[in-house]
């Protein structure tokens, strides 16, 4: 993984899993009707929720906090699925259900075809060692161990021999760009470097699924942007399923193949980034959309004009984003759009892009 990201790779990134049918038939993670209530009397609170009372009402009457409210998610293989919401909306609670760091009050959680809630403690440990790795907002590194031993930690726990696990760890340290820091202590590194250690530690387990709880939220904006690019590249080369939590809508749009928006523990909308930007489900989401860089969220594919046109001087992939084509209009009236094979399938004009970007800005022009 290099620090510099080239634009082309990002442009060509499939916005959705290449085979949508496969993703629907066998999901990597599926949560069905998961509700979590923190407090003394979860059953009573659960009944109130089912009667349609809100989180605030339940809390006022029973003193119990609703962490998750009837959450159902289907997360396909090989994609970055982002769960976005304000602080306190239940994001951390949600992601901790996937590896059962938190037990739900009710509902069903299937990961890789296995019912997580039916696992014995032993099964659960094996599951955590081999199927899901996790990256944390506060890094959670072991301060008394070197970077190398931190990255090797997951393997050590599973009983992998010293030589083997240290070799594997060294490889992943190199992948995340920390070669040379093997013997440093975590606290000698910057925040961004520490999170690379956290990422390498998760990658070293070689699991299909990686859970990332606000993994980049503690980092400075520039470092953060670089890490986002690297994550996208990593996902493409390693084909992981990544469940990514963030409170930052821009980040969600940038890295998410699919996005779910969480409010008061309930999912208010889920879909592709442009679905959410172009058709926000309610006012709450509209508020997010208002401040966001829409040019980043909207793909050329969804606004282009299809059909035969004259051959183009300049072409972009249908997976390009508006922000990628905008600079091209300085020199051109329109640009051609090509499919994966490189055949021209239509074109997009400056007018169309401007319209798409302007359409949902309330109070202007309409």
């Amino acid at each position, binding site marked *: 993984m290099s620090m510099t990201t080239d634009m082309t790779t990002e442009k060509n990134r499939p916005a959705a899993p290449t085979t949508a049918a496969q993703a629907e038939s066998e999901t990597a993670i599926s949560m069905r009707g998961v509700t979590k209530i923190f407090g003394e009397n979860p059953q009573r609170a659960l009944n109130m929720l089912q009667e349609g009372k809100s989180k605030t009402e339940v809390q006022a009457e029973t003193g119990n906090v609703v962490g998750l409210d009837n959450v159902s998610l289907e997360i396909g293989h090989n994609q970055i699925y982002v769960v976005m919401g304000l602080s306190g909306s239940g994001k951390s609670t949600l992601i901790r259900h996937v590896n059962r760091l938190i037990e739900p009050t009710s509902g069903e959680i299937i990961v890789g075809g296995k019912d997580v809630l039916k696992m014995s403690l032993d099964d659960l*440990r094996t599951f955590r060692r081999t199927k899901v790795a996790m990256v944390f907002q506060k890094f959670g590194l072991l301060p008394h161990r070197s970077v190398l031993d931190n990255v090797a930690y997951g393997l050590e*726990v599973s009983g992998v021999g010293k030589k083997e696990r240290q070799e594997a760890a060294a490889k992943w340290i190199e992948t995340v760009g920390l070669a040379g820091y093997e013997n440093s202590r975590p606290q000698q590194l910057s925040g961004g470097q520490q999170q690379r250690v956290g990422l390498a530690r998760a990658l070293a387990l070689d699991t299909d699924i990686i859970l990332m709880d606000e993994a980049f939220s503690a980092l400075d904006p520039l470092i953060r942007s670089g890490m986002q690019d690297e994550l996208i590249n990593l996902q493409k080369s390693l084909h992981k399923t990544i469940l990514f939590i963030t409170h930052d809508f821009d980040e969600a749009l940038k890295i998410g193949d699919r996005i779910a928006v969480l409010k008061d523990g309930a999912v208010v909308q889920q879909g592709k980034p442009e679905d959410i930007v172009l058709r926000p489900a309610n006012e709450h989401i509209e508020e997010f959309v208002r401040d966001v860089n829409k040019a980043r969220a909207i793909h050329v594919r969804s606004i282009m004009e299809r059909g035969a046109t004259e051959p183009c001087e300049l072409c972009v992939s249908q997976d390009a984003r508006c922000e990628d084509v905008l600079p091209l209009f300085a020199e051109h009236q329109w640009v051609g759009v090509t499919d994966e094979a490189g055949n021209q399938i239509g074109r997009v004009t400056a007018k169309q892009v401007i319209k798409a970007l302007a359409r949902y800005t309330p109070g202007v022009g309409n």
Partner: protein
Amino acid sequence: MFPDIIDTRPLRRAIDEGLNWVVANWGTQFEAAAHPLLVLLNLIEKLLVATPWWVIVLVLTAIAWRATRRWPLPAVVAISLLFLGVMDLWRDAMATMALMIAATLTAIIISIPVGVAMSRSVRVRHVLTPILDLMQTLPSFVYLIPTVMIFGPGKIPALIATIVYAAPPLVRLSDLGLRSVDPAVMEASRAFGTTPGQRLMGVQIPLALPTILAGINQTTMMALAMVVIASMIGAGGLGYQVLQGIGRLEVSRGLFAGLGIVVLAIIFDRITQAFGRQLQARIGLVEARP
């Protein structure tokens, strides 16, 4: 005066008779159970007495160097030990040191598992906290008398009394240290599929070690504070010299032996503290000193 509501005499008689019964029927068993303590204490004492004085000076000075890597502490340690030798307190200082080390070792073996149990269960903590308070505040003579009755005067009751008095801070600080380990680190460890044992040995204890070491430091200090009382029931050493000094009104004898205790306290206090700082720096809780 407060009115007599109940007659406490039968209660007191029952307790006294109960103790007498225990002494008569279980005395030998108790003594046998405590025998390993005596073996440990004698072993340490023999070792310290048999070792040439200059070896002990060298070893402790080297440990002090190892703990700080600067010259002031080793110098203080060497001068303090030479002071003990020059003042003709060496033999007694070794006996006191043996008592302190035996009490501290035993306290470590008992207290850390108890601290672990307390850190894991609120109920255990609720039960043990008042007992620890009691152990620290009950005047030591109150439990000294029954221990002497059970074990007879000698080193065993002296050692037990010292342990009872010196162990509580270590239990408390072990519990505190284990509970204050960063929950984010514990959660990360859990997410990687660790067993509770792996978390305890691989994360909690290493990260709690500076706090546990602070507990060990307190235990050594409290053990030294007990030596005069312990010498009343058969432990020799500097405490006995102090006692004799008081008894014979030889102020000088009491003063020198008292200073000897202070000197031992300084040595062990500074060395354990320095190790604690070193450990904290290593796991990044504070900046390492330049």
